[in-house]
């Protein structure tokens, strides 16, 4: 039955059936041909998969990001970052990374981060004479931080699927996100110096102050979200809806760039992006039920335990597996399928589920920068108007430092766990 399940899944993948449908087709085919479980339960599990209050944080965070974006926030974050680091050699590349880190604090998706900041930063870099491939690569790498610095939609999915505290996962993402951002800045400095990209003139401290005022309301948002969740005031879903309303108010009242007639389109687009994740969760809810009935997670756990008794080796095996899966599979799909398989083993080895969650999301974020399926690469290439092959030459150094940080945070758990431990239970 398990063999039939995975075989039909792989056939669907190869034909090019969307992943959410592939999972559904494989599950339903298995129930129909290789089991005597009733199919009414499949329809019921589609429903129960989406009938979830914690997952409702996903549409609200998507909406918050879209509203902030329509309110003109990404240009303001870019201007602020430009005032701080724009004058250094390769300044614009650093600005792209810093602005992406700021945007990561209001958006939970790497694609949204890359698209929003890239729309401002990539044309600016090209105007300044940067190579198009380099400009696109910097922005793609910076945008992937969108899922590491909270809020983070992949962390919400991991938290719901694995029953792990979303607030703690969010806290755990802070230091790794900052570390990755920092190392991307260092790499882009050296690459830019070699290519001879000069910085812009320093605009003075007054410019830093005035652009900070412009960006202030966006920078406040992560503090409201995390403060609310960790203070025990809001559930993550409630914090997300507060973020969406806050984003709308800032756009309407303070920035005055958001128009009432833009709202229906923003709402519909947020609903459609949400549903791509929710369809996956719905069909994976049938898939996971078959896996559990077949005791697949337990068997994988037993197999891995028979291979090694060292948590370090186990972690290395899983890390390699995640990096490989991340190259060809979309992040939410990987999380939904792999979390229930890996989590029992992780717990058996005494590894903290919060630590593992942040490591897993970071590993999959790196997968957004690798072909064949690298969503951040695609978006960046689109904005820079270049072919995928032109970005690949430049993305490698960024990939390598990100993998370096990933390895570091895997084997030095304190990097991830410092803030969640500080917060306590």
């Amino acid at each position, binding site marked *: 039955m398990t063999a039939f399940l995975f075989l039909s899944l792989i056939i*669907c*993948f*190869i*034909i*090019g*059936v*969307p*992943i*959410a*449908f*592939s999972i*559904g*087709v494989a599950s*339903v085919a298995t129930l*129909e041909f290789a089991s005597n479980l009733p*199919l*009414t339960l*499949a*329809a*019921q599990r*589609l*429903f129960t998969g*989406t*009938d*979830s*209050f914690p*997952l*409702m944080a996903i*549409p*609200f965070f998507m*909406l918050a990001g879209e509203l902030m974006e329509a309110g003109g926030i990404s240009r303001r974050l870019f201007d602020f970052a430009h005032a701080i680091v724009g004058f250094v050699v390769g300044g614009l590349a650093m600005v792209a990374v810093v602005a992406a880190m700021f945007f990561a604090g209001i958006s939970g998706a790497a694609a949204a981060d890359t698209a929003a900041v890239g729309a401002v930063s990539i044309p600016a870099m090209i105007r300044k004479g940067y190579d198009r491939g380099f400009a696109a690569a910097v922005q793609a790498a910076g945008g992937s931080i969108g899922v590491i610095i909270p809020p983070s939609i992949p962390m919400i999915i991991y938290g719901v699927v694995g029953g792990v505290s979303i607030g703690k996962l969010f806290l755990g993402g802070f230091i790794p996100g900052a570390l990755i951002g920092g190392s991307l800045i260092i790499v882009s400095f050296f690459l830019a110096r070699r290519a001879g990209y000069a910085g812009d003139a320093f605009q003075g401290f007054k410019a830093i102050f005035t652009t900070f005022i412009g960006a202030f309301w966006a920078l406040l948002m992560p503090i409201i979200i995390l403060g609310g969740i960790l203070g025990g*005031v*809001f559930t993550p*879903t*409630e914090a997300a*809806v*507060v973020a*969406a*309303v806050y984003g709308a108010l800032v756009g309407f009242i303070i920035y005055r760039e958001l128009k009432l007639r833009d*709202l*229906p*389109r923003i*709402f*519909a*687009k*947020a*609903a*459609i*992006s*949400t*549903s*791509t994740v*929710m*369809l996956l969760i*719905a069909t994976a809810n049938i898939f996971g039920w078959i896996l559990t009935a077949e005791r697949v997670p337990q068997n994988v756990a037993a197999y891995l335990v028979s291979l090694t008794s060292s948590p370090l080796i186990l972690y290395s095996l899983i890390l390699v597996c995640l990096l490989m899966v991340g190259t*060809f*599979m*979309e992040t939410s799909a990987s999380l939904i399928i792999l979390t229930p398989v890996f989590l029992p083993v992780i717990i058996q080895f005494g590894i903290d589920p919060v630590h593992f969650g942040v490591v897993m999301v970071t590993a999959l974020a790196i997968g957004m920068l690798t072909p*064949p*399926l690298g969503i951040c690469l695609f978006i960046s290439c689109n904005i820079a108007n270049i072919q995928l092959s032109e970005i690949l030459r430049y993305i490698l150094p960024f990939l390598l430092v990100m993998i370096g940080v990933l390895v570091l945070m895997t084997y030095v758990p304190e990097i991830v766990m410092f803030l969640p431990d500080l917060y306590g239970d």
Partner: protein
Amino acid sequence: MFFSTFFEVMDRCINWFLALLMAGMVVVITAQVWYRFVLNDPLSWSEEAGRYLFVWISFMGAAAGVRYQVHLGIDLMEKLLPPSLHRWTVALSNLIIQVFLLMIIYWGTKILGIVRFQESASMHISMLYPYMAVPVGSAFMFINSVRVMISAIRGRPLDREVRL
């Protein structure tokens, strides 16, 4: 000509429906926060109402997603095959989706007969209404999958602009 106008109207209706559901969900959960923290008088029904709106958003949004082709797959065939052959794998992949959806529509309708007599915990509405999202959403996914398949075979892909 008639068909393209008809489907354009259908797309717009679904998009408006999604926008309204989304706005409804924001209002309901914002009200929940407001009543609990500001008025100190928690609502009993808001969480459930929000969840059922969310189920409808998920399945109707997925239907729109099929039309705008935003459900990601692995594009191995697109890379390996010339466009003239690739369109047949698009057609095949949509056929597979359609068979799956027909089964979900059948079993999802069948289950309505069971759940219609159940009552939701806090709003006391028939569970028919939230559960209906599964077969209705799947039916629209089916229609849109057929549209995508036909446009792929004819070599005239649908544009992907979300219009209201």
